[in-house]
Protein backbone atom coordinates (compact mmCIF):
# COMPACT_ATOMS: atom_id res chain seq x y z
CA UNK A 1 0.00 0.00 0.00
CA UNK A 2 1.36 3.48 -0.90
CA UNK A 3 2.11 6.03 1.78
CA UNK A 4 -0.69 8.53 2.41
CA UNK A 5 -0.07 12.07 1.18
CA UNK A 6 -1.44 13.46 4.45
CA UNK A 7 -1.40 11.81 7.86
CA UNK A 8 -3.36 13.50 10.66
CA UNK A 9 -2.83 12.23 14.20
CA UNK A 10 -4.67 13.47 17.30
CA UNK A 11 -5.40 16.88 15.78
CA UNK A 12 -7.04 19.31 18.18
CA UNK A 13 -7.89 22.94 17.41
CA UNK A 14 -9.20 25.93 19.31
CA UNK A 15 -10.72 29.23 18.28
CA UNK A 16 -10.85 32.02 20.88
CA UNK A 17 -10.32 29.44 23.63
CA UNK A 18 -13.15 27.21 22.37
CA UNK A 19 -12.27 23.65 21.31
CA UNK A 20 -13.56 23.19 17.75
CA UNK A 21 -11.70 20.00 16.81
CA UNK A 22 -11.54 17.43 19.63
CA UNK A 23 -9.27 14.62 18.50
CA UNK A 24 -9.09 13.84 14.82
CA UNK A 25 -6.97 11.07 13.29
CA UNK A 26 -7.13 9.99 9.65
CA UNK A 27 -5.06 9.49 6.49
CA UNK A 28 -5.55 10.95 3.04
CA UNK A 29 -4.47 8.54 0.25
CA UNK A 30 -2.01 9.78 -2.36
CA UNK A 31 -4.61 9.59 -5.11
CA UNK A 32 -8.31 10.30 -5.53
CA UNK A 33 -10.80 12.34 -3.56
CA UNK A 34 -11.21 11.86 0.20
CA UNK A 35 -14.48 13.33 1.38
CA UNK A 36 -14.92 14.67 4.90
CA UNK A 37 -18.55 14.21 5.89
CA UNK A 38 -20.63 15.03 8.94
CA UNK A 39 -23.61 16.97 10.19
CA UNK A 40 -23.53 20.77 10.34
CA UNK A 41 -21.22 22.17 12.99
CA UNK A 42 -19.30 18.99 13.81
CA UNK A 43 -15.92 20.48 12.92
CA UNK A 44 -15.31 19.66 9.25
CA UNK A 45 -14.35 23.18 8.19
CA UNK A 46 -12.43 23.66 11.43
CA UNK A 47 -10.45 20.50 10.68
CA UNK A 48 -9.39 21.87 7.29
CA UNK A 49 -8.49 25.24 8.79
CA UNK A 50 -6.50 23.56 11.55
CA UNK A 51 -4.61 21.44 8.98
CA UNK A 52 -3.69 24.63 7.19
CA UNK A 53 -2.64 26.44 10.37
CA UNK A 54 -5.45 28.99 10.17
CA UNK A 55 -6.59 27.84 13.64
CA UNK A 56 -4.32 27.20 16.62
CA UNK A 57 -3.78 23.45 16.78
CA UNK A 58 -1.93 20.59 18.46
CA UNK A 59 -1.27 17.06 17.24
CA UNK A 60 0.78 15.76 14.36
CA UNK A 61 0.23 16.44 10.67
CA UNK A 62 2.59 15.11 8.01
CA UNK A 63 2.56 15.94 4.31
CA UNK A 64 4.34 13.23 2.29
CA UNK A 65 6.20 12.28 5.46
CA UNK A 66 7.22 15.83 6.45
CA UNK A 67 5.85 17.37 9.66
CA UNK A 68 3.89 20.52 8.80
CA UNK A 69 1.98 21.11 12.03
CA UNK A 70 4.49 23.68 13.27
CA UNK A 71 4.66 25.61 10.02
CA UNK A 72 2.83 28.85 9.31
CA UNK A 73 -0.04 28.80 6.83
CA UNK A 74 1.89 30.40 3.98
CA UNK A 75 4.75 27.90 4.33
CA UNK A 76 2.33 24.95 4.34
CA UNK A 77 0.70 26.27 1.16
CA UNK A 78 4.11 26.81 -0.48
CA UNK A 79 4.86 23.14 0.18
CA UNK A 80 2.12 22.39 -2.32
CA UNK A 81 -1.19 22.52 -0.46
CA UNK A 82 -3.91 24.34 -2.41
CA UNK A 83 -6.92 25.67 -0.51
CA UNK A 84 -10.43 26.46 -1.69
CA UNK A 85 -12.24 27.96 1.30
CA UNK A 86 -15.86 27.74 2.31
CA UNK A 87 -17.80 30.81 1.05
CA UNK A 88 -15.19 31.40 -1.72
CA UNK A 89 -13.42 34.30 0.04
CA UNK A 90 -12.50 36.03 -3.20
CA UNK A 91 -11.04 39.50 -2.85
CA UNK A 92 -14.10 41.53 -3.72
CA UNK A 93 -12.26 44.78 -4.48
CA UNK A 94 -9.77 43.14 -6.83
CA UNK A 95 -10.50 42.17 -10.42
CA UNK A 96 -10.72 38.53 -11.48
CA UNK A 97 -7.28 38.84 -13.12
CA UNK A 98 -5.81 40.33 -9.93
CA UNK A 99 -7.34 37.55 -7.80
CA UNK A 100 -5.68 34.98 -10.05
CA UNK A 101 -2.36 36.83 -10.32
CA UNK A 102 -2.15 37.02 -6.53
CA UNK A 103 -2.55 33.25 -6.28
CA UNK A 104 0.26 32.40 -8.71
CA UNK A 105 3.10 30.91 -6.69
CA UNK A 106 4.77 28.73 -9.32
CA UNK A 107 7.23 30.00 -11.91
CA UNK A 108 4.97 28.58 -14.62
CA UNK A 109 1.37 28.89 -13.42
CA UNK A 110 -1.18 26.73 -15.27
CA UNK A 111 -3.08 29.59 -16.88
CA UNK A 112 -4.13 27.53 -19.89
CA UNK A 113 -5.70 24.83 -17.74
CA UNK A 114 -7.65 27.46 -15.81
CA UNK A 115 -8.72 29.19 -19.03
CA UNK A 116 -9.92 25.86 -20.45
CA UNK A 117 -11.85 24.97 -17.28
CA UNK A 118 -13.33 28.42 -16.70
CA UNK A 119 -13.58 30.34 -20.00
CA UNK A 120 -16.08 32.70 -18.37
CA UNK A 121 -13.33 34.00 -16.09
CA UNK A 122 -11.19 34.95 -19.08
CA UNK A 123 -14.07 37.05 -20.44
CA UNK A 124 -14.54 38.66 -17.04
CA UNK A 125 -10.88 39.18 -16.16
CA UNK A 126 -11.29 42.96 -15.74
CA UNK A 127 -14.46 42.65 -13.63
CA UNK A 128 -14.31 43.14 -9.87
CA UNK A 129 -14.70 39.78 -8.15
CA UNK A 130 -17.23 41.24 -5.71
CA UNK A 131 -19.66 41.83 -8.56
CA UNK A 132 -19.62 38.19 -9.78
CA UNK A 133 -22.40 35.69 -9.07
CA UNK A 134 -21.85 33.02 -6.40
CA UNK A 135 -21.03 30.41 -9.03
CA UNK A 136 -18.53 32.67 -10.79
CA UNK A 137 -16.90 33.50 -7.46
CA UNK A 138 -16.58 29.78 -6.77
CA UNK A 139 -14.82 29.40 -10.11
CA UNK A 140 -12.36 32.16 -9.15
CA UNK A 141 -11.76 30.39 -5.85
CA UNK A 142 -11.14 27.04 -7.55
CA UNK A 143 -9.04 28.64 -10.28
CA UNK A 144 -6.76 30.25 -7.68
CA UNK A 145 -5.93 26.81 -6.33
CA UNK A 146 -5.65 25.07 -9.71
CA UNK A 147 -3.17 27.63 -11.08
CA UNK A 148 -0.42 25.95 -9.10
CA UNK A 149 1.08 22.51 -9.10
CA UNK A 150 -0.34 21.07 -5.86
CA UNK A 151 0.59 17.95 -3.92
CA UNK A 152 -2.77 18.14 -2.11
CA UNK A 153 -5.93 20.20 -2.51
CA UNK A 154 -8.12 21.14 0.47
CA UNK A 155 -11.58 22.04 -0.81
CA UNK A 156 -14.30 23.23 1.57
CA UNK A 157 -17.97 22.97 0.54
CA UNK A 158 -17.45 24.08 -3.08
CA UNK A 159 -21.10 23.55 -4.09
CA UNK A 160 -22.69 25.30 -1.11
CA UNK A 161 -25.47 27.62 -2.20
CA UNK A 162 -24.96 27.05 -5.93
CA UNK A 163 -27.58 26.37 -8.60
CA UNK A 164 -27.72 22.69 -9.79
CA UNK A 165 -26.22 23.56 -13.19
CA UNK A 166 -23.25 25.28 -11.55
CA UNK A 167 -22.85 22.37 -9.12
CA UNK A 168 -22.26 20.14 -12.15
CA UNK A 169 -19.59 22.50 -13.53
CA UNK A 170 -17.84 22.69 -10.18
CA UNK A 171 -17.89 18.89 -9.85
CA UNK A 172 -16.38 18.58 -13.33
CA UNK A 173 -13.63 21.03 -12.42
CA UNK A 174 -12.95 19.08 -9.22
CA UNK A 175 -12.76 15.83 -11.15
CA UNK A 176 -10.15 17.44 -13.44
CA UNK A 177 -8.28 18.70 -10.39
CA UNK A 178 -8.37 15.26 -8.77
CA UNK A 179 -6.65 13.85 -11.83
CA UNK A 180 -3.61 16.02 -11.06
CA UNK A 181 -3.51 15.92 -7.23
CA UNK A 182 -5.25 14.18 -4.32
CA UNK A 183 -8.18 16.14 -2.90
CA UNK A 184 -9.48 16.40 0.66
CA UNK A 185 -13.06 17.56 0.13
CA UNK A 186 -15.59 18.79 2.68
CA UNK A 187 -18.98 18.43 1.02
CA UNK A 188 -22.64 18.05 2.02
CA UNK A 189 -24.00 17.13 -1.40
CA UNK A 190 -24.09 13.31 -1.56
CA UNK A 191 -24.48 13.29 -5.34
CA UNK A 192 -21.20 15.15 -5.66
CA UNK A 193 -19.62 12.77 -3.14
CA UNK A 194 -20.90 9.80 -5.13
CA UNK A 195 -19.44 11.20 -8.32
CA UNK A 196 -16.03 12.18 -6.96
CA UNK A 197 -15.07 10.51 -3.70
CA UNK A 198 -13.07 7.32 -3.33
CA UNK A 199 -12.64 7.46 0.44
CA UNK A 200 -14.70 9.02 3.21
CA UNK A 201 -13.93 10.32 6.69
CA UNK A 202 -16.98 10.99 8.86
CA UNK A 203 -16.64 13.45 11.73
CA UNK A 204 -19.03 13.85 14.63
CA UNK A 205 -18.60 16.20 17.60
CA UNK A 206 -15.03 17.00 16.58
CA UNK A 207 -13.93 13.33 16.30
CA UNK A 208 -13.60 10.83 13.46
CA UNK A 209 -16.36 8.20 13.79
CA UNK A 210 -15.94 6.39 10.48
CA UNK A 211 -13.37 6.00 7.71
CA UNK A 212 -13.58 3.77 4.69
CA UNK A 213 -14.53 3.29 1.10
CA UNK A 214 -16.91 5.94 -0.26
CA UNK A 215 -19.00 3.57 -2.39
CA UNK A 216 -19.43 1.21 0.53
CA UNK A 217 -20.85 3.94 2.76
CA UNK A 218 -23.07 5.36 0.03
CA UNK A 219 -24.53 1.89 -0.56
CA UNK A 220 -25.62 1.67 3.09
CA UNK A 221 -28.55 4.09 3.60
CA UNK A 222 -29.03 3.07 7.24
CA UNK A 223 -25.44 3.90 8.07
CA UNK A 224 -25.71 7.22 6.22
CA UNK A 225 -28.82 8.00 8.22
CA UNK A 226 -27.07 7.10 11.46
CA UNK A 227 -23.80 8.93 10.73
CA UNK A 228 -25.00 11.95 8.80
CA UNK A 229 -28.64 12.27 9.78
CA UNK A 230 -29.79 12.48 6.16
CA UNK A 231 -32.15 10.31 4.15
CA UNK A 232 -30.93 9.10 0.79
CA UNK A 233 -33.42 8.48 -1.98
CA UNK A 234 -33.04 4.73 -1.34
CA UNK A 235 -33.98 4.69 2.32
CA UNK A 236 -36.66 7.28 1.78
CA UNK A 237 -38.28 4.84 -0.62
Amino acid at each position, binding site marked *: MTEPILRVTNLRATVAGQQVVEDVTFDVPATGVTAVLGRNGVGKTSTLKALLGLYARTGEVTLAGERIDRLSTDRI*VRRGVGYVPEDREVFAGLTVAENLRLAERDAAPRRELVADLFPDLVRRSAQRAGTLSGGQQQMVSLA*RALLNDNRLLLVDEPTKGLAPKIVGQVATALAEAAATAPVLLVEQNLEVIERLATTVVVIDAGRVVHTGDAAELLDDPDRIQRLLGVHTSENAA
Partner: protein
Amino acid sequence: MSTIVLLLITGLGLGALYFLVASGLSLIYGLMGVLNFAHGSFLTLGAFAGWEVARRLGADSWGVFGLALVVGAAVGAAFAALTELLLVRRLYERHIEQVLVTVGLALATVALFEGTWGSDPEFIEGPAWLRGTTDVAGAPVPNDRFLAIGAAVLVLIGIVLFLRYTRFGLIIRAGVENRAMVTALGIDVRKAFTLVFAVGGAAAGLGGVLASQYFGYVSPHLGAQLLIFAFIVTVIGGLGSLTGAAVAAVLVAVLQQFANYYWGYGDLVVVLLLALVLLVRPSGLLGRRA
Protein backbone atom coordinates in the same frame (compact mmCIF):
# COMPACT_ATOMS: atom_id res chain seq x y z
CA MET B 1 -12.32 87.37 -0.71
CA SER B 2 -8.56 87.44 -0.09
CA THR B 3 -9.12 86.16 3.46
CA ILE B 4 -11.14 83.23 2.17
CA VAL B 5 -8.44 82.38 -0.38
CA LEU B 6 -5.76 82.61 2.31
CA LEU B 7 -7.72 80.41 4.72
CA LEU B 8 -8.49 77.93 1.98
CA ILE B 9 -4.90 77.51 0.78
CA THR B 10 -3.53 77.49 4.33
CA GLY B 11 -6.13 74.86 5.18
CA LEU B 12 -5.06 72.80 2.16
CA GLY B 13 -1.44 73.07 3.33
CA LEU B 14 -2.36 71.88 6.81
CA GLY B 15 -4.52 69.16 5.26
CA ALA B 16 -1.46 68.05 3.27
CA LEU B 17 0.45 67.55 6.53
CA TYR B 18 -2.47 65.68 8.09
CA PHE B 19 -2.63 63.45 5.02
CA LEU B 20 1.09 62.64 5.13
CA VAL B 21 0.62 61.30 8.67
CA ALA B 22 -2.85 59.81 8.18
CA SER B 23 -2.00 57.89 4.98
CA GLY B 24 0.43 55.66 6.88
CA LEU B 25 -1.91 55.30 9.86
CA SER B 26 -4.75 54.30 7.59
CA LEU B 27 -2.75 51.75 5.57
CA ILE B 28 -1.28 50.22 8.74
CA TYR B 29 -4.69 49.89 10.38
CA GLY B 30 -6.32 48.66 7.19
CA LEU B 31 -3.80 45.88 6.62
CA MET B 32 -2.80 44.92 10.13
CA GLY B 33 -5.50 46.26 12.44
CA VAL B 34 -2.80 48.09 14.39
CA LEU B 35 -3.58 51.49 15.90
CA ASN B 36 -0.08 52.90 15.85
CA PHE B 37 0.25 55.61 18.51
CA ALA B 38 3.99 55.83 17.82
CA HIS B 39 3.38 57.18 14.31
CA GLY B 40 3.95 60.77 15.49
CA SER B 41 7.45 59.77 16.56
CA PHE B 42 8.29 58.78 12.97
CA LEU B 43 7.33 62.32 11.96
CA THR B 44 9.31 63.97 14.75
CA LEU B 45 12.47 61.95 14.07
CA GLY B 46 12.15 62.69 10.35
CA ALA B 47 11.81 66.40 11.14
CA PHE B 48 14.90 66.41 13.39
CA ALA B 49 16.88 64.41 10.81
CA GLY B 50 15.97 66.96 8.14
CA TRP B 51 16.81 69.82 10.49
CA GLU B 52 20.22 68.28 11.27
CA VAL B 53 20.99 68.00 7.54
CA ALA B 54 19.97 71.63 6.95
CA ARG B 55 21.87 72.88 10.03
CA ARG B 56 25.09 71.13 9.05
CA LEU B 57 25.08 71.69 5.29
CA GLY B 58 23.43 75.10 4.93
CA ALA B 59 19.72 75.72 5.33
CA ASP B 60 19.25 78.21 2.47
CA SER B 61 20.20 75.87 -0.36
CA TRP B 62 17.50 74.08 -2.37
CA GLY B 63 19.84 71.13 -2.85
CA VAL B 64 20.28 70.76 0.90
CA PHE B 65 16.54 71.19 1.44
CA GLY B 66 15.87 68.41 -1.08
CA LEU B 67 18.41 66.24 0.72
CA ALA B 68 16.71 67.04 4.05
CA LEU B 69 13.40 65.81 2.61
CA VAL B 70 15.00 62.57 1.40
CA VAL B 71 16.83 62.00 4.69
CA GLY B 72 13.68 62.79 6.71
CA ALA B 73 11.69 60.26 4.68
CA ALA B 74 14.45 57.63 4.87
CA VAL B 75 14.88 58.02 8.62
CA GLY B 76 11.09 57.86 9.15
CA ALA B 77 10.93 54.69 7.00
CA ALA B 78 13.83 53.01 8.81
CA PHE B 79 12.44 53.85 12.27
CA ALA B 80 8.99 52.59 11.28
CA ALA B 81 10.35 49.35 9.78
CA LEU B 82 12.39 48.68 12.92
CA THR B 83 9.33 49.37 15.09
CA GLU B 84 7.36 46.76 13.14
CA LEU B 85 10.17 44.19 13.12
CA LEU B 86 11.21 44.52 16.76
CA LEU B 87 8.00 45.41 18.59
CA VAL B 88 4.74 45.18 16.67
CA ARG B 89 5.42 41.88 14.84
CA ARG B 90 5.23 39.92 18.10
CA LEU B 91 1.88 41.47 18.98
CA TYR B 92 -0.41 40.83 15.99
CA GLU B 93 -3.94 39.94 17.15
CA ARG B 94 -3.05 41.28 20.62
CA HIS B 95 -4.64 44.70 20.33
CA ILE B 96 -4.37 45.88 23.94
CA GLU B 97 -0.65 45.07 23.99
CA GLN B 98 -0.21 46.87 20.66
CA VAL B 99 -1.76 50.02 22.09
CA LEU B 100 0.36 49.80 25.24
CA VAL B 101 3.60 49.25 23.32
CA THR B 102 3.01 51.99 20.74
CA VAL B 103 1.86 54.50 23.40
CA GLY B 104 4.92 53.55 25.46
CA LEU B 105 7.20 53.98 22.45
CA ALA B 106 5.66 57.38 21.70
CA LEU B 107 6.26 58.58 25.27
CA ALA B 108 9.77 57.14 25.42
CA THR B 109 10.82 58.66 22.10
CA VAL B 110 9.55 62.12 23.06
CA ALA B 111 11.71 61.85 26.21
CA LEU B 112 14.62 60.65 24.06
CA PHE B 113 14.19 63.54 21.63
CA GLU B 114 14.04 66.01 24.54
CA GLY B 115 17.22 64.51 25.97
CA THR B 116 18.95 64.74 22.58
CA TRP B 117 17.73 68.07 21.20
CA GLY B 118 16.24 69.79 24.25
CA SER B 119 12.59 70.47 25.02
CA ASP B 120 12.44 73.95 23.50
CA PRO B 121 11.45 74.41 19.86
CA GLU B 122 14.35 74.88 17.43
CA PHE B 123 13.44 77.57 14.93
CA ILE B 124 14.38 76.62 11.43
CA GLU B 125 15.41 78.23 8.21
CA GLY B 126 15.15 77.14 4.65
CA PRO B 127 15.49 78.43 1.10
CA ALA B 128 14.51 82.10 0.92
CA TRP B 129 11.51 81.37 -1.36
CA LEU B 130 9.89 79.27 1.37
CA ARG B 131 9.91 82.24 3.76
CA GLY B 132 8.19 84.46 1.19
CA THR B 133 4.60 84.75 -0.02
CA THR B 134 2.83 84.55 -3.36
CA ASP B 135 -0.14 86.71 -4.19
CA VAL B 136 -3.24 84.63 -5.03
CA ALA B 137 -6.41 86.65 -5.75
CA GLY B 138 -5.07 89.41 -3.49
CA ALA B 139 -4.11 87.04 -0.66
CA PRO B 140 -0.43 86.79 0.36
CA VAL B 141 -0.13 82.99 0.66
CA PRO B 142 3.04 81.65 2.36
CA ASN B 143 5.02 79.65 -0.18
CA ASP B 144 5.63 76.69 2.12
CA ARG B 145 1.89 75.88 1.84
CA PHE B 146 2.31 75.19 -1.88
CA LEU B 147 5.27 72.93 -1.18
CA ALA B 148 3.29 70.90 1.40
CA ILE B 149 0.32 70.57 -0.96
CA GLY B 150 2.54 69.53 -3.90
CA ALA B 151 4.39 66.98 -1.78
CA ALA B 152 1.16 65.45 -0.44
CA VAL B 153 -0.29 65.18 -3.96
CA LEU B 154 2.91 63.46 -5.15
CA VAL B 155 2.84 61.08 -2.17
CA LEU B 156 -0.83 60.28 -2.83
CA ILE B 157 -0.13 59.58 -6.52
CA GLY B 158 2.97 57.55 -5.62
CA ILE B 159 1.14 55.36 -3.10
CA VAL B 160 -1.82 54.86 -5.46
CA LEU B 161 0.53 53.78 -8.28
CA PHE B 162 2.43 51.51 -5.89
CA LEU B 163 -0.78 49.88 -4.67
CA ARG B 164 -2.19 49.49 -8.17
CA TYR B 165 0.80 48.36 -10.23
CA THR B 166 3.15 46.39 -7.97
CA ARG B 167 2.83 42.87 -6.55
CA PHE B 168 3.35 44.20 -3.03
CA GLY B 169 0.58 46.70 -3.71
CA LEU B 170 -1.67 43.84 -4.81
CA ILE B 171 -0.82 41.91 -1.63
CA ILE B 172 -1.56 44.97 0.51
CA ARG B 173 -4.93 45.64 -1.20
CA ALA B 174 -5.90 42.00 -0.78
CA GLY B 175 -4.60 41.94 2.80
CA VAL B 176 -6.73 44.94 3.74
CA GLU B 177 -9.77 42.86 2.66
CA ASN B 178 -8.84 39.46 4.05
CA ARG B 179 -5.43 38.91 5.58
CA ALA B 180 -5.99 35.23 6.43
CA MET B 181 -6.88 34.39 2.83
CA VAL B 182 -3.70 36.08 1.58
CA THR B 183 -1.62 33.74 3.76
CA ALA B 184 -3.78 30.83 2.57
CA LEU B 185 -2.53 31.61 -0.95
CA GLY B 186 1.03 30.95 0.23
CA ILE B 187 2.05 34.59 0.68
CA ASP B 188 4.16 35.67 3.63
CA VAL B 189 2.10 38.70 4.52
CA ARG B 190 4.60 39.79 7.19
CA LYS B 191 6.88 41.25 4.50
CA ALA B 192 3.97 43.39 3.37
CA PHE B 193 3.44 44.47 7.00
CA THR B 194 7.03 45.70 7.27
CA LEU B 195 6.77 47.44 3.91
CA VAL B 196 3.56 49.21 4.85
CA PHE B 197 5.13 50.43 8.08
CA ALA B 198 8.15 51.67 6.08
CA VAL B 199 5.96 53.46 3.50
CA GLY B 200 3.87 55.03 6.28
CA GLY B 201 7.05 56.02 8.14
CA ALA B 202 8.53 57.58 4.99
CA ALA B 203 5.39 59.68 4.43
CA ALA B 204 5.44 60.74 8.09
CA GLY B 205 9.18 61.57 7.97
CA LEU B 206 8.64 63.65 4.84
CA GLY B 207 5.68 65.27 6.58
CA GLY B 208 7.98 66.08 9.52
CA VAL B 209 10.39 68.09 7.37
CA LEU B 210 7.49 69.90 5.68
CA ALA B 211 5.68 70.48 8.99
CA SER B 212 8.78 72.13 10.46
CA GLN B 213 8.73 74.54 7.48
CA TYR B 214 4.96 75.09 7.87
CA PHE B 215 5.17 75.88 11.60
CA GLY B 216 8.65 77.45 11.46
CA TYR B 217 10.19 75.22 14.12
CA VAL B 218 10.96 71.64 15.03
CA SER B 219 10.28 70.28 18.51
CA PRO B 220 10.02 66.88 20.25
CA HIS B 221 6.26 67.39 20.42
CA LEU B 222 5.71 68.11 16.72
CA GLY B 223 4.53 64.56 15.96
CA ALA B 224 2.13 64.33 18.89
CA GLN B 225 0.67 67.72 17.90
CA LEU B 226 -0.24 66.43 14.43
CA LEU B 227 -1.00 62.83 15.40
CA ILE B 228 -4.28 63.53 17.17
CA PHE B 229 -5.68 65.29 14.09
CA ALA B 230 -4.27 62.58 11.83
CA PHE B 231 -6.17 59.99 13.87
CA ILE B 232 -9.35 62.05 13.50
CA VAL B 233 -8.72 62.28 9.73
CA THR B 234 -8.17 58.52 9.55
CA VAL B 235 -11.43 57.76 11.34
CA ILE B 236 -13.47 60.31 9.37
CA GLY B 237 -11.99 59.10 6.06
CA GLY B 238 -12.61 55.45 6.91
CA LEU B 239 -9.97 53.19 8.47
CA GLY B 240 -7.94 51.59 5.70
CA SER B 241 -9.04 53.98 2.94
CA LEU B 242 -6.24 56.05 1.41
CA THR B 243 -8.64 58.15 -0.67
CA GLY B 244 -10.81 58.60 2.41
CA ALA B 245 -7.78 59.89 4.31
CA ALA B 246 -7.03 62.41 1.54
CA VAL B 247 -10.63 63.70 1.42
CA ALA B 248 -10.95 63.85 5.21
CA ALA B 249 -7.56 65.60 5.60
CA VAL B 250 -8.71 68.43 3.33
CA LEU B 251 -12.14 68.62 4.97
CA VAL B 252 -10.82 68.67 8.54
CA ALA B 253 -8.00 71.14 7.94
CA VAL B 254 -10.02 73.64 5.88
CA LEU B 255 -12.90 73.52 8.37
CA GLN B 256 -10.44 73.97 11.23
CA GLN B 257 -8.85 77.02 9.60
CA PHE B 258 -12.17 78.72 8.91
CA ALA B 259 -13.58 77.92 12.36
CA ASN B 260 -10.41 79.15 14.03
CA TYR B 261 -10.47 82.43 12.11
CA TYR B 262 -14.17 83.24 12.44
CA TRP B 263 -15.05 81.75 15.85
CA GLY B 264 -11.78 80.68 17.46
CA TYR B 265 -13.03 77.13 17.99
CA GLY B 266 -11.31 75.20 15.22
CA ASP B 267 -10.37 72.18 17.35
CA LEU B 268 -13.88 71.95 18.82
CA VAL B 269 -15.44 72.02 15.34
CA VAL B 270 -13.15 69.15 14.25
CA VAL B 271 -14.20 67.05 17.24
CA LEU B 272 -17.87 67.81 16.52
CA LEU B 273 -17.34 66.75 12.90
CA LEU B 274 -15.80 63.49 14.14
CA ALA B 275 -18.79 62.88 16.41
CA LEU B 276 -21.21 63.61 13.57
CA VAL B 277 -19.46 61.20 11.18
CA LEU B 278 -19.34 58.47 13.84
CA LEU B 279 -23.06 58.90 14.47
CA VAL B 280 -24.20 59.08 10.85
CA ARG B 281 -21.58 56.93 9.12
CA PRO B 282 -19.54 54.95 11.66
CA SER B 283 -17.35 53.33 8.97
CA GLY B 284 -16.16 56.78 7.83
CA LEU B 285 -16.70 58.64 4.56
CA LEU B 286 -15.07 56.02 2.32
CA GLY B 287 -14.54 53.12 4.74
CA ARG B 288 -15.98 49.66 4.25
CA ARG B 289 -19.21 49.03 6.11
CA ALA B 290 -18.95 46.34 8.80
